[in-house]
């Protein structure tokens, strides 16, 4: 793996850590602000994913993340 690839991967990992930290710190508006208009937040269990079944745990658009953040 080249140094360039390693650095790029490191920056992705750092970004994921930052997103997780926003949730841990309950900064939900800041979390939502990281999403583009057409961004999506999808969490699917392996059992459904492996069988091609559509049921997710969370299947939110940016608007639905805004909805959730208003409920907290």
């Amino acid at each position, binding site marked *: 793996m080249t140094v360039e690839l390693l650095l790029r991967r490191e920056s992705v990992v750092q970004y994921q850590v930052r997103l997780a930290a926003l949730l841990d710190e309950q900064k939900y508006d800041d979390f939502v602000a990281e999403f583009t208009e057409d961004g999506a937040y999808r969490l699917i269990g392996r*059992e459904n994913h492996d069988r091609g*079944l559509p*049921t*997710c*745990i969370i*299947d939110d658009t940016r*608007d639905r993340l805004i*909805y959730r953040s208003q*409920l907290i």
Partner: protein
Amino acid sequence: MVIGELCGRDERGNVLSVDHQLYADPKVYEAELEKIFHAGWVLVGLEVEIPNPGDYTTTWVADLPVIVCRDEGGKLRVLENVCAHRGAMVIRGSGNRKVFTCIYHQWSYTLQGELKALPMEEGYHAERFSKSDYRLRAFPRVETFCGLIFAASDPRVPPVADYLGTAGDEVKEVLKGGALELLGMQRYTVGANWKLFVENTIDTYHAPLLHRAIQTNRGGYNFVPGMGRSHKFPNGHNMLKWALTGRAKEFDPRTDLPLTRCLSRTEGWNRSINLFPNTLVLNFEDVLSVRRLVPKGPDKVEMHAYVLAHKGEPEAVKANRAWVMASQLGIAGVASLDDKIAMELVQQGAAGRLKKTILLRGDIDADVGDLTEEQTLRGFWEHWAGVMEK
């Protein structure tokens, strides 16, 4: 201790309160296994999980591992998933097979549970060993109702359709004969007694009070006195029923309750049906789901939620059913996530040994009331107390 006496009853047998230890005492739980889960009808799966000959899935009846399968002739079988040799769990997961083979010593069983072959059989002396003495124990009664698979350990139970009675008629309205498509599963564990999960699903008093998503919803789902019905049926079955309130055309993703995005219908009924003990059939707007409860000790329960559509429905309807279920009534849903916390709070509170957690809302003597009354809960407990006193 006569467990049934821990329910506070009036002279007509109406249960008005329950002792908090009924949710927490290991002795109560052990008695429930014997008198409820290893005796009468229990939901073990759905036909849609195992449509073809040779299909099987593995699950649990409370503490007991079981195989639910369809044999070569298409007949449903429910077998104890316990090898007759050394007692190992024979198989895990789900799939399609001709035999079930235990990994430990490779004893293999037919789909009917008979011991088919074992390695080095000649090492057993004929005077001490006969293959036909060994098998996977089969549940003596297995029946289906609208695609639901029930099994019973007591061979004397009545046919499942008789056991369900009036509640079965309501299930037929929801599952329409059982031609279903599986859109996925949600499986999760709640740190609470199994009865708290039943009660949560048949109690609407809490709905607009606990759930911020319902409090803040514009129109619909603000359950108030006079709305809908709370039913107590024979054999501990019960149901909440109210008119559809879906408003698909107006749905605003930034402000609206997931349930209000309804594409499958414009009128009709919503139902939350509990079939005693461990079955919950839900049809709220586009949510079509069966919840199967697997108790795991007095203070833990597994939820196996089937997310369903009727066969042949448009793709958009199916997609919406899956989305609404996950967003509203799944583990990360804006209602069921709150419910999990509330159930666990009641379980934590059980250390206080409150003698009377009350079930007094509405008309105590009526079998039907509005949604905010508690005929459902009293019906569940009255049957529970009767079974536990036997």
